[in-house]
């Protein structure tokens, strides 16, 4: 019996920069976020969009670009941040650029909303720049504190559009290349024609194909992809 090749389970590191973000139809939002890193004085941008539209990628790119300009930026992922918000958010107004991700995670939680409201007031008083991201439009997220939602829209709200089908092959190829594998054009076409077309699913499919290809020592072809993805391997 042939021994099964066991691929090493490791996450592939990828720097999130503006350079490796597929802008697609989001050029205006990306431009505003870049200016946020470069400009001086109070500025604020809110981006929202469905899952896998690159919200966290963009906010982290803001932090990196801010650092490249010799300033301090901080990324605040509300969904995964440990500890109480008031403690974790304290003093952040002393950082030049504050990027708060997963704003929807705070909606409906009065204490979290108040901590964020207080942070925004402190940050504006100090001329900090702020970027926010959420899955929903800030005017429609179920915030208890109306003062908070009104402050979130002050600098401009941008909806991030998902990548178009024309942009997806290139994005998937880059994703595959960063994993060290090659996905042929016909396999990408097959994925786009026969499977859900959101980037989350597609990126996950590439990962599964890569994993199965290493395990089975086979090239990634359309029949192989059909078998792997149908079997949930």
């Amino acid at each position: 019996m042939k021994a099964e090749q066991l691929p090493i389970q490791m996450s592939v590191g990828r720097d999130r920069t503006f350079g490796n973000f597929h802008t697609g139809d989001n050029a205006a939002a990306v431009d505003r976020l870049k200016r946020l890193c470069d400009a001086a004085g109070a500025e604020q941008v809110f981006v929202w969009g469905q899952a896998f539209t690159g919200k966290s990628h963009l906010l982290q790119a803001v932090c990196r670009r801010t650092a490249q300009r010799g300033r301090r930026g901080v990324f605040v992922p509300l969904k995964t941040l440990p500890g109480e918000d008031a403690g974790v958010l304290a003093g952040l107004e002393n950082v030049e650029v504050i990027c708060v991700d997963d704003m929807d995670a705070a909606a409906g939680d009065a204490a979290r909303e108040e901590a964020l409201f207080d942070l925004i007031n402190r940050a504006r008083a100090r001329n900090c720049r702020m970027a926010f991201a959420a899955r929903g439009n800030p005017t429609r997220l179920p915030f208890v504190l109306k003062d908070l939602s009104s402050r979130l829209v002050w600098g401009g709200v941008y909806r991030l559009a998902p990548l178009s089908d024309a942009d997806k092959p290139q994005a998937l190829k880059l994703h595959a290349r960063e994993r060290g594998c090659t996905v042929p054009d016909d396999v990408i076409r097959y994925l786009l024609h026969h499977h859900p077309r959101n980037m989350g699913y597609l990126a996950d499919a590439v990962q599964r194909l890569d994993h199965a290809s290493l395990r089975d020592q086979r090239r990634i072809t359309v029949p192989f992809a059909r078998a792997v993805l149908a079997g949930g391997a």
Partner: protein
Amino acid sequence: MSLWQQCITELESLLPEEDVNTWIRSLEAVETEHCLRLVAPNASTREWIRKNCLGHISRILSLKQDTLDVQLEAGPQETPSAGQETAAEQRHTGLAQAAEPRIESCLNPEQTFDTFIEGKSNRLACAAAQQVAANPSKSFNPLLFYSGVGLGKTHLVHAIGNEIKRTNENLRVLYLTSERFVADMVRALRKGKMDSFTRFYRSLNVLLVDDIQFFADKEQSQEEFFHTFNTLFQSQSQIIMTCDCYPAEVEGLQERLKSRFGWGLTQAIEPPGLETRVAILQSKARHDGVALPDEVANYIAENIRSNIRELEGALRRVIANASFTSNPITIEFARDALRDLIATHNRILTIEKIQKTAADYYSIRPNEMVSPRRNRTVVRPRQMAMALAKDLTNHSLPEIGEAFGGRDHTTVIHACRKIKDLRQENTQVEQEYKDLTRILNG
């Protein structure tokens, strides 16, 4: 590259990127010859660094400079609101203004009466504000504005403060939010400096407190504010406050405070009408040095009605997009820039919705979309609906085919290609596609 920047570069290869952006990049590094002092914005960040990567940091730095001492600390966790900590310690009780050192008023110099746009909705509030600014503590005391969010309460309060400072330079004026009052009090309690805190607040000539609704359920802060209020009122200092609703309706606020808040004038600010919204937009555009055509200001004002912050956000977006694309600001441009803001964009488009909209548009019955009929009057609308379903949803092509009467995914591919070609060849089809996209996107 500084030592700390070199260290961050190495940490980037050791830690997940998110950790670097969340914790490492927020540290302030102060380098001296033999010491690198890392100042975290708060105690939580300091503890995270201590537990998760102080070892890495020390090791990396020791390889670069073995005599370097690395110190980790948390910086000040709250920004002093008015420089009052030092001032308060020097201060004596009493309100003799000439004897008191000046304080930082925390007023926004841009928010003045000149930049406040007056309209029917805020005329009374504006008049009261101007009267109080001209004669502090002699007309309405306290003066309280209440309204929904983003309607200009804070602007009016700053305008009063700025005007008083302009005409009475020596008066001790302080603007702050109620949360800042609470935070200052908590800090004073923690440091055992309540005497200084009390003396400082009770020595003001004009106290402007924003958002008093946040005193709700904070008993000790209410107690302290009650005494501050009484002292200031008795010494004829001016008190100006804002609230997001009529103060008597704030739950969790002591009755004695509610009653005192009503001693002077309580004035509502109503949402601005269309003309005021247009004037606000024109004023803000002028401030930014941008020429905003009247019809564009009208378009934005007609569509953004909720509050002034949202209005300003919309304007900023139009201006930023115009600058980015080097396009002139026209009504078409504004409509395009704000399309998703104005639309009910949280709505998720379904294939059924697309079918119904396309059927209505082409005046055919919705069930024709799923029928086997193949005559020309039905086929083109059906192909258009399939193309829109592909472009505007994330459904797979087999799912789209299935929703159109169980058709094969190759039929969907054919329909999409056909519509794509027709849009290039035929302006009528292109217009139909644009119309339907606009309708579906709201």
